[in-house]
């Protein structure tokens, strides 16, 4: 592997995460001023972007194959733990998207965070995130991918808790880290399982890699390993658990809405466009494993569809502009999973392109929506409640138009980018499974509906907040315009669009199925129309009841409270966790008690030995007693031997008399 060989190998790909890494180290260790830090981070990412474009261009040809550059990290037990990078269309497209959207958001943040005292720290974390994300998409080793995956999680933790002075931010950061870790455990088990089964972590290795036909065939030949899945399916299922955690799928979605406590550019970059899509990316990357077992593909599409519907419903009942977008992200990620799962069932390898395509388009319009929301929040004096907005359209024209463009793409309005990608998902769901199709379709209908509701709240009517609306600086609006163009103008090059699908998986994708086209149109236009009908003319605001709430009281309360999932987890999982800790502490006191008893017995015995045996029996009675007697007898002697002559004479006389008497008595 050679980092400087730009023509024959792909080792140079390492430079893409290395530039942000250098920025991270620089900012972390030398702590320069905020403005300078932003410049360093932007420059580093620009360098990565240029290289990523080169990588993307290399894959954009009919002859593009899979290029790898591997090296051994550790050699242990005769087995190599190998690392490497891989360049294939999936890598190329992801690299280009992440760096491009990333750079726009970096530029936006330079303005957005310019008054924050922690700006240097912010760009340090943001660059660290880029290291992880770029490393993740180009890893050719499941282990390396996992390591970058964790770096991304760490950066996300640090950024959600960026405003750690807010207790809610610190709590959200903790929640996000722990919840995604539950998923990560699945990922870890999956990679350990894969390593045991194949003795390699490499994904592509000249025919020997985990994702290549030889290993896949061998793995799927072992039937009924666990839960009736074959060898490849089990690994895929575990990896999918990791993806569920990272991409906020049911039931591990609870962290994502709370993650909005971070600064808005972070929500845009990490919790909308890139990191949360890492779960979807993982499934796409490991797709051959998923393809080997239809059951797992079914699970993927069902989990995705249910998540999409659930999150779309919850989004209906939210009033926080970022929370609505957060739930819509969860919902869209669910649709991407449907694209992968159902796409795999319907089109085999083609499924990769269906899920990934929506990932790519979503990244643009969702980043746009979040950045737009950031501009609106910024403009309304840091107010996030949509009931306190209103009339924004007239005051912030550019930002509003851009936001509406993003909203249209999210609603899959015909000929926007979202329309094409969602169309493909619905099409594959139609082919694969009827129920999944109808669930996804209703989720899409709701998407159009809640976005219209939100836009009515934000843009129509009179301004209901306090203070004047401030205009955004041009450094903030410029990225919005660029993203809006990408979200809308994609429709003009629609033929090229279908080419992307082919490009991503190498499989030609069917473009037309009239029923799906009809449904797509009905969904998008119907949802928007319904939204306008209900919210368009209504009185909105804090004092007015939400029109939906007026007609659907109890079900709407469920939506407002996000189906009480957080409360449910608090009542069950958290309790269980605490209870087991308490139980163990109880056991620990048992052990302590035992130890103390033994110690008590030992010291007690020591006490007994020392007090009773040693001091009483041996010392007092035996030793002291003997000494005492000797001493006392000494005193007696001392009385006698007092040195007075008369006394001695008295004694001698007394003795003589006694002797005489004794003689008289015994001598007879």
């Amino acid at each position: 592997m050679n980092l400087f060989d730009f023509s024959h190998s792909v080792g140079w790909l390492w430079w893409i995460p290395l530039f942000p890494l250098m920025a991270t180290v620089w900012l972390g260790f030398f702590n320069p001023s905020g403005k300078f830090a932003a410049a360093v981070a932007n420059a580093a990412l620009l360098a990565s972007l240029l290289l990523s474009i080169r990588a993307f261009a290399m894959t954009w040809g009919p002859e593009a194959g899979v290029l790898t550059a591997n090296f051994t990290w550790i050699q242990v037990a005769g087995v190599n733990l190998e690392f490497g990078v891989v360049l294939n269309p999936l890598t190329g497209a992801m690299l280009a998207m992440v760096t491009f959207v990333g750079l726009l958001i970096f530029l936006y943040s330079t303005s957005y965070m310019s008054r924050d005292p922690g700006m240097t720290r912010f760009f340090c974390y943001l660059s660290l995130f880029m290291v992880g994300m770029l490393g993740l998409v180009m890893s050719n080793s499941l282990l390396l991918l996992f390591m970058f995956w964790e770096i991304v999680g760490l950066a996300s933790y640090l950024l959600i808790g960026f405003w750690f002075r807010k207790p809610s931010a610190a709590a959200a950061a903790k929640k996000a880290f722990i919840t995604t870790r539950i998923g990560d455990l699945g990922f870890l088990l999956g990679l350990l399982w894969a390593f045991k089964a194949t003795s390699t972590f490499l994904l592509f290795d000249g025919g020997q890699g985990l994702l290549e036909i030889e290993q896949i065939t061998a793995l799927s030949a072992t039937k009924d390993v666990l839960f009736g899945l074959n060898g490849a399916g089990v690994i895929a299922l575990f990896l999918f658990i990791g993806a569920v955690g990272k991409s906020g799928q049911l039931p591990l979605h609870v962290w994502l809405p709370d993650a909005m406590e971070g600064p808005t550019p972070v929500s845009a970059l990490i919790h909308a466009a890139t990191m949360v899509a890492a779960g979807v990316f993982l499934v796409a990357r490991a797709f051959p494993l998923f393809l080997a077992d239809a059951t797992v593909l079914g699970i993927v599409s069902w989990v995705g569809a249910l998540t999409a519907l659930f999150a779309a419903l919850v989004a209906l009942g939210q009033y926080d502009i970022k929370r609505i977008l957060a739930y819509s992200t969860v919902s869209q990620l669910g649709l991407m999973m449907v694209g992968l799962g159902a796409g795999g069932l319907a089109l085999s390898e083609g499924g990769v392109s269906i899920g990934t395509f929506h990932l790519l388009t979503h990244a643009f319009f969702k980043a746009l929506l979040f950045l737009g929301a950031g501009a609106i929040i910024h403009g309304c004096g840091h107010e996030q409640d949509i009931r306190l907005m209103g009339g924004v359209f007239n005051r912030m024209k550019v930002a509003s138009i851009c936001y509406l463009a993003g909203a249209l793409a999210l609603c899959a309005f015909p000929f926007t980018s979202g329309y094409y990608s969602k169309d493909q998902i619905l099409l594959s769901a139609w082919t694969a499974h009827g129920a999944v199709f109808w669930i996804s379709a209703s989720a899409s209908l709701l998407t159009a509906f809640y976005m219209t509701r939100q836009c009515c709240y934000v843009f129509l009517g009179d301004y209901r907040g306090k203070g004047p609306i401030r205009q955004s600086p041009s450094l903030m609006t410029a990225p919005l315009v660029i993203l809006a163009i990408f979200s809308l103008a994609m429709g003009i090059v629609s033929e090229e669009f279908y080419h992307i699908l082919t490009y991503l998986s190498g499989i030609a994708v069917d473009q037309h199925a009239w029923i799906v086209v009809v449904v797509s149109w009905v969904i998008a236009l119907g949802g928007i129309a319904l939204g306008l009908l209900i919210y368009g003319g209504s009185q909105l605001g804090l004092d007015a009841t939400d029109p939906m709430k007026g007609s659907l009281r109890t079900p709407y309360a469920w939506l407002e409270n996000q189906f009480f999932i957080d409360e449910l987890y608090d009542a069950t999982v958290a309790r269980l966790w605490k209870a087991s800790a308490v139980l163990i502490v109880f056991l620990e006191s048992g052990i302590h008690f035992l130890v103390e008893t033994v110690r008590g017995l030992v010291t007690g015995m020591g006490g007994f030995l020392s007090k009773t045996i040693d001091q009483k029996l041996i010392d007092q009675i035996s030793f002291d007693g003997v000494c005492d007697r000797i001493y006392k007898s000494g005193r007696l002697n001392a009385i006698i031997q007092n040195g007075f002559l008369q006394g001695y004479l008295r004694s001698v006389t007394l003795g003589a008399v006694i002797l005489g008497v004794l003689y008289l008595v015994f001598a007879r």
Partner: protein
Amino acid sequence: MTALLTVIISYLAAVVLGIIPGRHYRLIRGLALVTGLSTLAVSLVCYGQFRLGEGGTFQNVIELPWIPAIGAEFKVGVDGLSISLLMLTGLVAVCGVLFTWTLRERANQFYAYYFALIGGVFGVFLSLDLFLLFVFYELAIVPKYFIIAIWGSGRKTYAAMKLVLFSFVGSAVALLGLIAIYYGSGQHTFDLVQLMHSGEFSPKFQIVVFPVLFVGFGILAGMWPFHTWAPTGHVAAPTAASMLLAGVVMKLGAYGCLRVAIGLLPEGAVYWAPVVGWIAVINIVYGALIALVQTDFKYVIGYSSVSHMGFVLLGLATLNEVGLVGASLQMFSHGVIGALLFALVGSVVYSRTRSRQLGDFHNLVQRMPGICWTFVAAGLASMGLPGFSGFVAELHVLIGAWNQDRFSIWIMVMAGIGVLATFAYTLVKIHEAFFGKSSASASDEPYAPMTLAEKIGCGLLLSIATVIGIYPPLLTSILEPSLAPILEALAAAGKEVF
């Protein structure tokens, strides 16, 4: 000869430092630092001199007659495993001095005991004669008592007594095993190398004696349910001593388990492996869950040590190469990270807050930002995040455990729960300690920033943990060949038992 210098320097320093009058504390701590640094330097020289090609044999061997009547010799030497632990001991010794930099009270005696303890530890890692090993093992126990009882805090005499009693019980049990080996081998020798090569122990003998040796040494490694000395002792000990206790002394036990119990009685090890595996995962989960509910910051770290030692035991129980390498890596890794955590909690934070109760801490993130982020980094290292040594070690252990077919799947599940619980308690406690607010003391006055000594100490330990995490071959390359003889014996034993 080089390796033996570590022992000589330490004991010499113990004597010299003990003689210097206590009022010259500056001179004393300077000398102590020089001593620590020179032991570290010596161990690094050993690392440099280590011949990888002959990794399976002991190098630098010195053999002197000692007590011929019982066949005990003064025999020392090193292999990759002992070198890694020598380096760890030297490193922790240096950092211990750095974090005790402000000590004035009876500094001469403190460092005398400190280096007496370190000398004993070095001796154990070097000994190639079981009797000598046992002597050093005992020699290391005595100074611990005085250090805790004199310079400790809280229930120090109780903790000191508890720790010493546990240690002595452990070594008494281990001695029983060692004597059994002495007679069982039929050669009436304590020579470890000779016993490994030609010791013929019947399977029945091994199955009976293995648990005796393993438990005897395991007590010092914090093996459940004989672990309770560890948190109490670690908490009561002064910082430098808790760093040594958690960082190095617990590894004495694990080293004994690996070198003596598994190395000499492979068939016994194969027989008992599943039981050891279960105890190991109990250690992991049990320690982590208890750490989750502690309110004393130092107890959190104390129980986290118990939990992390579980990974060492799990690695030992796998009895395969990846697992044993993992166990050895985890010994080193936990030595570094555990020492760092104890230094932060016991010295850096405590010297400023004058409290260890999590409830007393108020808004520390703003009052000591540098220390807070250092602790966050240490916590991330402790929970085994990629990029830190803990990840590499735990990964090896988990791969090893996964490859051990005799482990029930539930052992893996428990290990997974343990990984999660580690994550949970580390984050929860970081938040309680640094991001929490206490109404009792509402002052927002900033604390003093880290001193130079503290910065050097933290920087040294954190960077070592990172370097090993990014480039583990630095250690695995010397560990792997040195574990080969034990693995060969195990492979042969595996065939015999099954």
